[in-house]
């Protein structure tokens, strides 16, 4: 019974309204499904698509068409932000995602504060925004998810990560100043994506985990700046998904404080238990990406149906997908959710 569109279904979840079945999405960015199988069959390939709005949109459409995920997701990396903020990027290959080659600054005190409006004209920002525009005109029934690298991860991609983490203790004032700046930039970038046609913003912040930061710093930095970001984006009325990597463990107590419309988690988290503990939480996740790469379609299918049975609100991969995951596994995943 697919009487409602993928976009409407997803938005009904954010609004906590009833739905026929959960949406199955793969937001993009850190969690994108631009697998080698898809790229080779269509010829719209990475790394070229990182730099070209039409190619980026075409690849996002390929992913949507071939995998069965019910959204368009852009971009296909986590480096757009750090590039504009000054870091050197290695754009990777067909099967290897872009990465930070060298962080621009040694520590927080060295960060140069640039004009945000100027930065929005640089790097690949306009490509991503434009790709969103193309996609929003391709199929209005499909949500366009614009992806952001979260505040802590962006800061740790611009400042040497070891020094950044030490700075959270050693130089709190400097750390807060940098994070404020990073979030202001992220909000402005998100607003551009939304003006361009993005209907949802998804934030992945893999450095902002309880395992890395511990509960005290997770609250002081991650919760504070994720919320600043969510609120800044929220002014446009656009829903925000926040993905938290790793086990929630010691930071589970702060999950309800994050004011995004949905929380996506890693495979380590038992989403059923999390839902029981926090019934008001809109949960997203968390099919093992290890299984998507190394499992068999039947196993994937069983796990996908289990997530549906557990009434996980939005079904999605738990983490970044391997580019060598098989299309058969991903199709088994999305079809199983759609069949219920």
């Amino acid at each position: 019974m697919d009487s409602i569109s993928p976009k409407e279904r997803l938005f009904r979840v954010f609004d906590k309204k009833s739905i026929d079945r959960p949406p199955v999405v793969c937001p993009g960015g850190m969690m994108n499904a631009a697998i080698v199988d898809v790229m080779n069959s269509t010829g719209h390939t990475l790394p070229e698509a990182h730099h070209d709005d039409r190619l980026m949109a075409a690849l996002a459409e390929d992913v949507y068409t071939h995998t069965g995920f019910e959204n368009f997701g852009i971009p296909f990396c986590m480096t757009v932000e750090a590039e504009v903020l000054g870091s050197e990027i290695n754009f990777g290959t067909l099967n290897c995602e872009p990465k930070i080659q060298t962080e621009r600054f040694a520590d927080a005190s060295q960060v140069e504060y640039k004009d945000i409006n100027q930065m929005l004209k640089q790097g690949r920002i306009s490509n991503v925004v434009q790709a969103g525009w193309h996609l929003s005109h391709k199929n209005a029934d499909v949500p366009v998810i614009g992806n952001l690298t979260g505040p802590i991860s962006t800061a740790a991609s611009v400042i040497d990560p070891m020094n950044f983490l030490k700075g959270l203790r050693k130089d709190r004032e400097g750390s807060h100043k940098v994070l404020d700046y990073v979030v202001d930039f992220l909000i402005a970038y998100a607003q551009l994506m939304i003006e361009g046609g993005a209907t949802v913003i998804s934030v992945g912040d893999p450095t902002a985990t309880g395992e890395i930061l511990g509960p005290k710093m997770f609250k002081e930095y991650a919760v504070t700046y994720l919320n600043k970001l969510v609120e800044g984006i929220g002014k446009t009325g656009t829903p925000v998904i926040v993905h938290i990597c790793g086990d929630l463990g010691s930071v589970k107590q702060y999950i309800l404080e994050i004011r995004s419309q949905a929380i996506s988690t890693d495979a380590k988290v038992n989403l059923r238990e999390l839902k029981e503990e926090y019934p008001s939480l809109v949960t997203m996740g968390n099919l093992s990406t290890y299984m998507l790469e190394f499992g068999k379609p039947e196993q994937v299918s069983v796990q996908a149906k289990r997530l549906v049975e557990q009434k996980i609100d939005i079904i999605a991969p738990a983490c970044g997908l391997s580019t060598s995951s098989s299309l058969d596994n991903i199709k088994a995943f999305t079809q199983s959710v759609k069949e219920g």
Partner: protein
Amino acid sequence: MSNTENDFHQKLSDAVVNMEDAAAASLSQEVVASGFDAYEAIDKGLAKGMERAGVLFEEEEYFIPELLMCSDAMYAGLDVLKPHIKTDEQAQKYKIVLGVIEGDTHDIGKNLVKIMLESSGFEVVDLGRDIPPAKFVEKAVEIGADIIGLSTLMTTTMDGMRAVVDILKEKNIKEKFKVIIGGGPISPAFAKKIGADGYSGNAAGAVRLARDLCGVVQ
């Protein structure tokens, strides 16, 4: 009242645990000025402090920022004391080649493992991050390493770990090296599957694993 040697050891250990790098450096200078043994001060002071920090990390009292600050204090003291170690005290050290597999530039975990191994007396050759599998083997052969340590945070790069073991097998030199692996997506089952010699879920565990595999009495 002047400090006894034991006082210094305790204070050095405390300076590391309390993340006080300036104190660790000045205490180390005092150790040297007082004519106490530099090697003992490292072993019973700085390294002991790092071991305590590792315990706090495992107990989730300390997290990565704290452990890094502790290691800064340890290295601050080490910089002062190292030149004063008597040569006959420099025991044969076990060597480890360490790095993050190609495709992954996350190296926080690897850096923690390096810190903990170094503070436990291992000689660590750190290849860095985003390292092709063949490079690990090449370096391990070159320096006559005892252990090859591989880290990854990304499921996408786990195959590179298998590649390292496979290269060693192809070259018929697998038995010369112990391969240990760790990182977010890695499990003991995966280690077994690819033929690695051990797995650790955290930096302190990596030290125990390395000691075990080298037959170091703990």
